[in-house]
């Protein structure tokens, strides 16, 4: 939500661009993201690729959980293993100035991020779930970027 809010503030800078141009750019970036996830495109994207240390949670549980959530959710200190969030960030940035797309995308992103630990826990066998995820992750990330491109084709009209 925080990242989406910042992107929404910046989105005003791009409103002079015609809607068709913005839509084309969103689709193009999402397709590039899919190509990057397939491994056909080598492109370094900005990220602070470090793991949040476990002692963040040991020092103070509530404050640590907040810090952990902030750093993981905003991506200021985490490994960003897929390109779809970058495509989504560009989509919000070029969404046209209304706060509603940023709010919806931010809420959806948070829910999507929470799905992983929730499903892993519900599976009853975390290690088996991790194995399944590792085998399917590449296909999943490519599909996510491709779906963002597909959705962008119809949303900004």
């Amino acid at each position: 939500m925080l990242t989406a809010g910042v992107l929404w503030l910046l989105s005003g800078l791009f409103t002079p661009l015609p809607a068709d141009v913005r839509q084309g750019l969103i689709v193009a970036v999402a397709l590039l993201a899919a190509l990057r996830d397939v491994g056909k495109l080598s492109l370094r994207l900005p990220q602070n690729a470090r793991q949040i240390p476990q002692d963040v949670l040991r020092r103070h549980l509530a404050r640590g959980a907040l810090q952990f959530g902030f750093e993981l959710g905003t991506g200021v200190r985490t490994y960003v293993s897929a390109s779809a969030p970058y495509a989504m960030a560009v989509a919000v940035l070029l969404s046209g100035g209304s706060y509603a797309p940023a709010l919806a995308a931010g809420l959806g992103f948070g829910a999507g991020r929470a799905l992983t630990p929730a499903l892993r826990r519900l599976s009853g066998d975390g290690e088996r779930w991790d194995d399944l995820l590792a085998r399917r992750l590449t296909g999943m990330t490519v599909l996510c970027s491709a779906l963002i491109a597909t959705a962008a084709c119809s949303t900004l009209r």
Partner: protein
Amino acid sequence: MGRSGRPVARPSGARAVRTLLTDPVLPVAALAIAAIAAALYAPMLTWAITGGLAGYSLSGSV
């Protein structure tokens, strides 16, 4: 085959259903169908669903 070379035991009964319902691919499939439906009928919902896809794509991230 498991890491030790033995075949991995397939879950059965209720456990199999649980495994199926918590498959890591299931949210992507559900969100894909929802994204297509939303793109046709509810553009604002499409933003939330694609946001969900972007968030879930980070499943391998720590």
